[in-house]
């Protein structure tokens, strides 16, 4: 093979490799960290929710986003990985917020009901 051909081939390979790198050149460290954070958030939400119904849908959504984020990392799609990870994290937060809200509301309702009962009882109790 003549020299120029080898050279142009090298250039061609180099160029295409460069294109490949910029196009889907893997995922940045920042994105990886974001994906890891979202995984932590999902796991924490799972632990916090337990079997609570409130927030369960959002937690499932967070899990779905997280697995999409993982796929995007595998596909070396930095932007999508970051977006899915962000959405996973936010949905995990939302599920926890919903479950906290639900238990606070339940406690408030129970307390109000107990006050109601107490009032009725003390009003009913005759002064003998």
């Amino acid at each position, binding site marked *: 093979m003549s020299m120029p051909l080898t050279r142009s081939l090298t250039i061609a390979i180099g160029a295409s490799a460069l294109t490949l790198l910029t196009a889907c050149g893997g995922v940045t460290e920042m994105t990886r960290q974001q994906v890891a954070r979202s995984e932590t958030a999902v796991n924490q939400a799972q632990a916090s929710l337990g079997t609570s119904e409130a927030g369960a849908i959002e937690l499932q959504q967070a899990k779905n986003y997280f697995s999409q984020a993982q796929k995007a990392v595998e596909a070396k799609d930095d932007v999508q990985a970051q977006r899915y990870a962000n*959405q996973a994290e936010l949905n995990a937060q939302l599920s926890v917020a919903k479950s906290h*809200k639900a238990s606070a509301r339940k406690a*408030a309702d129970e307390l*109000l009901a107990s006050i109601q009962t107490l009032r009725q009882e003390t009003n009913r109790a005759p002064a*003998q």
Partner: protein
Amino acid sequence: MKRTHNIILAAALAAAIAGCSSTPEQPIAELETARAIVPQVESSPRAGVAAQNVSDARKALDSANAMMEKGGKVDDIRYEASIAATNAQIANEKILEAQAKEEIAKGESERQQVLAEAREREAVAARDRASSLEQELKDLKAKKTDRGLVLTLGDVLFDTGKATLKPGAFATLDRLANALREDPSRRVVIEGHTDNTGSDEFNQQLSENRAMSVQSALMQRGVSGDQISAMGKGEGYPVASNDNAAGRQQNRRVELIFTEDNSGQRVATD
């Protein structure tokens, strides 16, 4: 044939353009949602409990709106809008949680208040009950002594030499029983006494039997046995001289001694 090709090509091109860029004619659902709920949480008086989420929501919504203006990519707009909407939802949940907790705090103090009212009412009722017993005893001419209020049931209320109560005692016993039932904290000590006629043993037995029969009469009228104790004191505690009939009659008696609550002021037996 060639025309068909062209049409397909044109359609594909249009699809590509619509798919990857330019402002769509259709409204973006995520953006509509974000536009509706972000201002809601911003205007909540409790927005402070979710300040970070509210401000993140606003930033993302502004960015989505700006892209919409400039004809940005639908996917980008959709993403920013969903970040805005989710943050607003989180803020909303936190606001509702704060609201519930405020209700709990308010409810706690309300509960305390209701309980305090109930206690106060109970205390007033107890005072009323106590005063009704005081009143009864006053009406029945109970005497205030250092042993407590002493009510004397005279000899005439018993059959001679026997422990059976005569019907004449019933009205008094009814009133005492009512008053004692209303105030379960009051205690009464029933003491039987005799004159010095007859043997000591007989007098002791008679005084015991008379005290017991007053006790059982009160219990038959619903007074708790815990409130009553009864004993015979025989002839040893005369209140008048045994030398004449009038004095002896005064000595033949049953005394009911009312003590304050169960504060250990139970009357000494001697």
